[in-house]
């Protein structure tokens, strides 16, 4: 299999990216590496159906990001969407229309292995009913080249809880892992208290983090906060992704959590390439090729 050099990858990708590397798998062993390196792309907070001054380009931004990812010379093994696929609506019919149109747009992705998880905009008003019709289960696991992925749903409960049932399921799944297995958790909201006064938390997220603590090589990717953010809880790294609709201010940087003004360069928006090797390397991808 291909083992692209990172610089070659960036060159071939033909897009300006910001790289973030960290020893996020501190307990990594050579044997695990032998399982194979790969990369995936994270989309988040596409909010299909939103319209308003924070993004006058809202009808095209997602399509542009799809085209940019389709243009990557090294196509990812799979793509994950970490919630808020659609912008919320009180009308169940409109919600389904948005989900349908969203699915049509992302079906243009060259990579056909695409995984979804819900955000509160998709699932909180009907406890995930419409979401499940279009995208299936709201929490599930999958394995890819020696890495175990677990998606957690902290939005189908409108109080932003995982709930005891899901926590028990999470605990049971983790029990089957060895302490040095490579594990990735995908979710929508921060599992830790990033900014409680802005509700950037998960009500019972601390319980999930406690369950994760015995595992040395576990990392979390999430969305919700519409910006890049990197945070450690003990040895566990939590990486928030940019959105594709409008950026939000840095946690606590201003009194209110209001969208940042529109910037035609869309520098606050984008997707992210994640390479899983002995280290996890993140490359932030712009919406459109410059």
């Amino acid at each position, binding site marked *: 299999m291909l083992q692209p050099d990172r610089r070659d990858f960036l060159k071939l990708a033909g897009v300006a990216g910001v790289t973030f590397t960290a020893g996020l798998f501190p307990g990594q062993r050579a044997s695990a590496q032998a399982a194979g390196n790969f990369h995936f792309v994270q989309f988040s907070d596409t909010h299909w159906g939103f319209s308003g001054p924070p993004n006058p380009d809202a009808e095209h931004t997602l399509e542009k990001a799809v085209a940019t990812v389709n243009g990557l010379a090294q196509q990812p093994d799979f793509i994950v969407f970490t919630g808020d696929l659609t912008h919320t609506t009180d009308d169940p019919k409109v919600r389904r229309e948005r989900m349908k149109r969203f699915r049509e747009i992302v079906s243009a992705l060259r990579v056909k292995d695409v995984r979804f998880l819900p955000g509160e905009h998709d699932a909180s008003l009907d406890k995930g009913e419409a979401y499940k019709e279009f995208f299936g289960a709201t929490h599930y696991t999958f394995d890819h080249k020696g890495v175990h992925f677990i998606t957690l749903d902290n939005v189908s409960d409108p*109080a932003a809880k995982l709930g005891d049932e899901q926590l028990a399921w999470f605990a049971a799944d983790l029990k089957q892992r060895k302490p040095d297995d490579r594990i990735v958790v995908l979710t929508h909201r921060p599992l830790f208290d990033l900014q409680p006064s802005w*509700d950037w938390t998960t009500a019972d997220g601390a319980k999930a983090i406690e369950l994760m603590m015995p595992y040395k090589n576990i990392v979390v990717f999430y969305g919700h906060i519409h910006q890049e953010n990197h945070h450690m809880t003990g040895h566990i790294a939590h990486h928030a992704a940019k959105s594709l609709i409008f950026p939000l201010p840095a946690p606590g940087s201003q009194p209110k959590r209001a969208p940042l003004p529109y910037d035609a360069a869309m520098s606050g928006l984008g997707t992210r390439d994640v390479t899983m090797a002995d280290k996890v390397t993140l490359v932030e991808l712009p919406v459109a090729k410059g």
Partner: protein
Amino acid sequence: MKRRVFAALLIGSAVGGSLRLAAETSNEVKILAMKFDFTPDTVKAKVGQPMTLVLTSMDRIHGFKMPDFGIRTDILPDQETRVTITPQKAGSFTFFCDIFCGDGHEEMNGTLVVEA
């Protein structure tokens, strides 16, 4: 029909807002919750002076969370939920709805202004 709900909530926080089951206090403030506002959205309080927030929803279930005081409760339609606090520190403290209620939920918030 209106029922009174006495909310027993957790005590303790960095700010030290103390909380107890609400008895009749002279200092009551009614706050109405409705998609996607609290009315009023600015509430004044004084350090050391107990006050009771009387919370009612006009439409659907909402949440009321004030992290600096360690407070959260549901706000239900046609019910009064009473929360008594005694602010220990001057400053502005955010409260917000923490039950997703639609397009505008993220803007459903207010401020408790505590004066010395």
